[in-house]
């Protein structure tokens, strides 16, 4: 079963959270952001081309125009392939581990898996991000030698940055599973 809930990210944009209960000890959370909108593509392309045209008008150098086309295409490709993330998924399986994956707009996916034995806890933390203070969900990793110490922190949903109400929901579900093992 899956239900899409609407939340907002820290900038007030709409995001969707889907929770899938595969079984009592396996849950999947997917945060999706809206696809690249045509309007944004148009706005960016037009602004690059307008600037290029003004420069061309002043310098009368046609290389500027072809440069602008090149910049737009490469920029779009890079954005779609490396920057724009459509879905971020957190798959938590009790006693096994946590899989974090993010799929880019181009279809590329990057996935990491963290064993349960390395995980100390999943918590909501707050930090300073770009001139503001925000909440984020993160996985605390154990120090291999000393199980009480923290070795590092893995932030979750880094690109979508949901707000606290969404984080609390995910957090509670995660804790239910963590409490079982």
């Amino acid at each position, binding site marked *: 079963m899956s239900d899409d809930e609407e939340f*907002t990210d*820290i*900038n*007030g944009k709409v995001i969707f959270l889907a929770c899938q209960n595969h079984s009592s000890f396996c849950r999947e959370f997917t945060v999706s952001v809206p696809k690249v909108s045509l309007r944004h593509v148009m706005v960016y392309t037009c602004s690059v081309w307008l600037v290029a045209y003004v420069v061309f008008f002043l310098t009368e150098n046609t290389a500027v125009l072809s440069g602008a086309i090149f910049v737009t295409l490469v920029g779009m490709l890079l954005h779609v392939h490396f920057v724009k993330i459509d879905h971020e998924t957190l798959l938590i399986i009790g006693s096994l581990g946590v899989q974090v994956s993010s799929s880019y707009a181009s279809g590329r996916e990057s996935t990491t898996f963290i064993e349960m034995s390395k995980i100390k*806890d999943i*918590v*909501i*933390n*707050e*930090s*300073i991000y770009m*001139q*503001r*203070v*925000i*909440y984020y969900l*993160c996985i*605390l990793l154990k120090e291999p030698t000393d199980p009480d*110490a*923290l070795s590092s*922190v893995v932030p979750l949903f880094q690109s979508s940055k949901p*707000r*606290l*109400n969404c984080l*609390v929901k995910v*957090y*509670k579900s995660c*804790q239910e599973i963590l409490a079982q093992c």
Partner: protein
Amino acid sequence: MNVKNLSKSCMMGQRQRAGRKGSLSNRTPDGITVGIQDSPKHNICMVSDFFYPNMGGVESHIYQLSQCLIERGHKVVIATHAYGNRRGVRYLTNGLKVYYLPLQVMYNQSTATSCFHSLPLLRSVFVRERITVVHAHSSFSAMAHDSLFHAKTMGLNTVFTDHSLFGFADVSSVLTNKLLTVSLCDTSHIICVSYTSKENTVLRATLDPEIVSVIPNAVDPTDFTPDPSQRDDSKITIVVVSRLVYRKGIDLLGGIIPELCLKYPDLQFIIGGEGPKRIVLEEVREKYQLHDRVRLLGALEHKDVRKVLIQGHIFLNTSLTEAFCMAIVEGASCGLQVVSTRVGGIPEVLPEELITLCEPTVSSLCQGLEMVIAKQQSGSVPPPAAIHSRVQTLYTWRNVADRTEKVYDRVAKEVVLPLDGRLDRLRAHCGPVAGSIFAFVAVLDFLFLLLLQWFVPDSVIDIAVDASGPRGLWRRARTRQKEPSANCHKDTGTGNGEHLYGALFKKR
């Protein structure tokens, strides 16, 4: 929406309790439900450049005051700048939340001021913590002045505590005084630590004395108890604990040491503290061959101060300027005879029979010390325990918090000046040139705030979960949980926040 969700999930207990009070509860403008029998609870943000891990009087003042205010049910957060690796959000004892904001440090642990660059971060803190009173500390702290400026732009009540005295004559004090005038002319209330300091501040910042309160500092009397067994009664020991800087009159000390050591063969000095004037004392020690009688301990940690104090019979303070001298109270609390210079606010600090006041000259200080030494030798001084019990009740942090709370209550009723009123005040108060410049800066600050509100409206800033205050989760989480999680107090490099949330949410 999120607030409601959160309060649904986290604050059930609080809701139920508030519900039970029913008719007794009233609602303050910021939406906190409090019982009518209590005084209103405030959300206070202490701002200063100076906080732990930096050590000093202002730092411990802020910490102790905050702890006592939390005890009285207020919500307190502290904003300071990042100290090296210590940045982000941390929690101290009893859920005292500290924001270490990444602002550039310029000089002497004070941040650079450009009037604007700190606005986004401070606004974020003020909005998410639903701050109602901004309390800035220390006139040396640029961040404190910035926060006052921004808080007034955002329409929050402001309180400022001045911890130091200034001169009027040299260029730097003329400039600081001007800045202080600008900063304080529209601040709701100012707190000084002594009457001398009040006089000084009122003159420097041309303020209305009506809005300046005097609330002295305090010491924790349980930290400074006498222990005469640690003394070496075959000798007479004079203890000096201060930073070794010009302001503390270390040059006077350099004059006193040889003179008294020559007269009294059984006299020794213990000097704790570090600073640029250490060289003066080392020279004196070298010149008069006093290595066995003058011990220089170097920098002392606060917890070690008592160990040093209880070894002495006489506490000597040679400050040249002092708004309120904590050191002499600590000395007297440890049962020592106090000899001090009569400068600044020092005469107000202790009752006459507990202190010997001298003029800030070598001869006068020597006279005073000789008198006390004679008394000590004849055994006519009161026992340390008697002195301690007198001092014990003089300055307590609870009393300070009590009086500060009254200031907050008064300030909360006042209306913050709107922008036009503020501009008029600035121009009327600070002279035509500086007034106009800062009025312009105030307008720019206001426009910047509007811009920020357009980029990130207040509604998308998540309201922070309260650790202290009426809805504080810290105490409830800790009382509900029988075995307290040791993590909350342990300082792991990544901050305690995660443990708090781990602990807070798990317990439900």
